[in-house]
């Protein structure tokens, strides 16, 4: 599904290198988790994959189902099936949540040569999905993320994901800021989407989320590199011992 080879990234405006050779391969239907200390480059990786400005790829490649991701515009990546649930979802005053969702969904369908969804069908779909995520109709009417609580913003990200049905879902700390019940809701939302044709990359600091969304592989990222990969037990190790041992291990 997603294949990242030796990815090196620096900031466009500064001589600051953030990613120093990331290698990652996620097969179809797999769930991978990335953990790692603050500032290790996890969000940067997700931004570079989704096409945010301000970063320069100096080496390496990334492909989604064989298509070169890094050459595409952000909207093309989305239409190709990539989705990023933001660590900090963006507030857009003046743009209604419904308008936003419908425009996005129909734009993707159009790009893929599918028919646009009628207003009625769209409404039915969004209401059903919102209900399972306990997002009330009032929230859907408001401008995108404006005045949403931290947890509401995260649930809104998952709602977008559920509506857009991407193939490759990257979740950047979707669990932070969520209460226990909301985390369960979000995890259920993710699990409902799991299938053989869809993959997930879950960035998190906490093992707790991974109790709900069971990963196939756990990676540890530090200083712009994946320093160790393993099974779910790796997340437990981090939870219990922190990163010190792992970092020391690599330093040897």
């Amino acid at each position: 599904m997603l294949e990242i080879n030796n990815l090196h990234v620096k900031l466009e405006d500064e001589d600051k290198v953030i990613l120093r050779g990331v290698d990652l391969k996620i097969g179809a239907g797999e769930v991978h988790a990335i953990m790692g200390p603050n500032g290790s480059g996890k969000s940067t990786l997700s931004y570079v994959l989704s096409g945010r400005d301000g970063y320069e790829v100096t080496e390496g490649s990334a492909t989604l189902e064989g298509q070169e991701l890094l050459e595409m515009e952000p909207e093309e990546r989305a239409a190709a099936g990539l989705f990023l649930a933001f660590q900090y979802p963006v507030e857009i005053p003046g743009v209604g949540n419904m308008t936003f969702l419908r425009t996005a969904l129909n734009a993707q369908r159009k790009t893929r040569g599918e028919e646009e969804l009628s207003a009625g069908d769209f409404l039915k779909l969004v209401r059903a999905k919102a209900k399972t995520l306990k997002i009330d109709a009032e929230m859907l009417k408001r401008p995108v993320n404006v005045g949403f609580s931290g947890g509401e913003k995260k649930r809104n990200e998952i709602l977008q994901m559920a509506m857009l049905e991407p193939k490759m879902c990257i979740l950047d700390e979707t669990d932070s800021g969520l209460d226990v019940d909301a985390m369960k809701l979000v995890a259920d939302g993710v699990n409902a989407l799991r299938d053989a044709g869809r993959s997930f990359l879950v960035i998190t600091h906490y093992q707790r989320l991974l109790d709900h969304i069971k990963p196939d592989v756990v990676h540890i990222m530090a200083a712009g590199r994946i320093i160790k990969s393993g099974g779910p037990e790796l997340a437990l190790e981090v939870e219990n011992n922190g990163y010190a041992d792992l970092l020391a291990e690599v330093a040897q």
Partner: protein
Amino acid sequence: MNLPKAKQDALTARLAGLSFDARGWLGAARSEALARLGAMGLPGKRDEYWRYTDPTSLTTPEAPPAAAFDAGDETPVFDGIDRVKLVFTDGVFDADASDDLTLAGVEIERLAEAGAADIHWAQGLYGALEARGQTPVQRPLAALASAFASDGVLIRVTGRAAKPVSLIYRHVSETSDAILHHCVKLEPGAELTLLENGPAAARFTKVLEVEVGTGARFHHIRAQGRDHARRAATHVFARIGAGALFKSFTLTANGRLTRNDAVLELVGDDAVAHVAGASMGDGDFHHDDTVFITHEGERCESRQVFKKVLKNGAVGVFQGKILVKPGAQKTDGYQISQSLLLDGDSQFLAKPELEIYADDVKCSHGSTSGAIDDTALYYLRSRGVPLRQAQSLLVLAFLAEAIGEIEDEAIAEDIRSRLEGWLHRHAH
């Protein structure tokens, strides 16, 4: 007091080609306006409220030629709205294209026919609000319109108008120089929506005087036409009585030069005045909103919401003042003027002013100028919204507060579709 020679010469030259009609009660009002104009002279570049906008092309004897524009790729503005239409072509009333001027609760007279008739209610109104509006800031082009208007409408509203009155201004001749003057009087408790649309002429000078009686409600929505080369100097003077409401919204897309003055006086207690504008310019576009709101009554509310979208060297100007007179306690005044600069060439000049002589008031004003928010743009694109469409969504979001001042949802939707059309046509 004599005018300086240059000002006197410019005025004489401008008036040489205009015919003055001194007949009847209207003639008397026109004579007073002419005297006001004679004392002021035409606006000059050094006048305090003309520093950002060069008035020369608005004051030359001949209108600078402007080709008529064919907006046939869109349905006419307000097409779907049921209304009573009055059509003026290059400033001349077109009876064939207009509806029958009957509307329950509303009296509609043409200015060109009013001079000979005895229209008692208009006699104290014509030119009166314009005259009041000459202090403390002079507005000579308004006095010019009062003195020389070739036509206009006089509307008296005694009840709740069943549908809007719609003034349609067609522009055909490349050299037309239209001068119109309208008066609207809303009796206590009356209600009217006035629509205006179209460029009117190569050059358009206009006054609209509105007397909003106690508890009356007046809605004004206009679209100034898509002509690129036209010029316009328009004025709204309103006096708003106790518990009354005045709301005015203007859409300006294109136009070489537009100056829209709004002079609003909240004279009764608990009155409300909102004035808003959305303007969009690409290239040779200069748009100036100059607003003066006076709070006299207690507990009155005023809002000024002006948004400008500018690209390719377009220029936006906003001069807005709130004057709170002694005794106008509990005034709630709000003013926002913002521009969205779609490139580095465009310019926004803003001059917000507050002058407050009462101690228990709440007044706020803000002015910003900025580009499209990159982060929001990226967020939209990351969800699959193509660049152009994402930009368009954000521009409409920027304009939303101004459009939100239109209460009628069907009219607001019509205006919104014009903005979308413009953005679509002007997406690089």
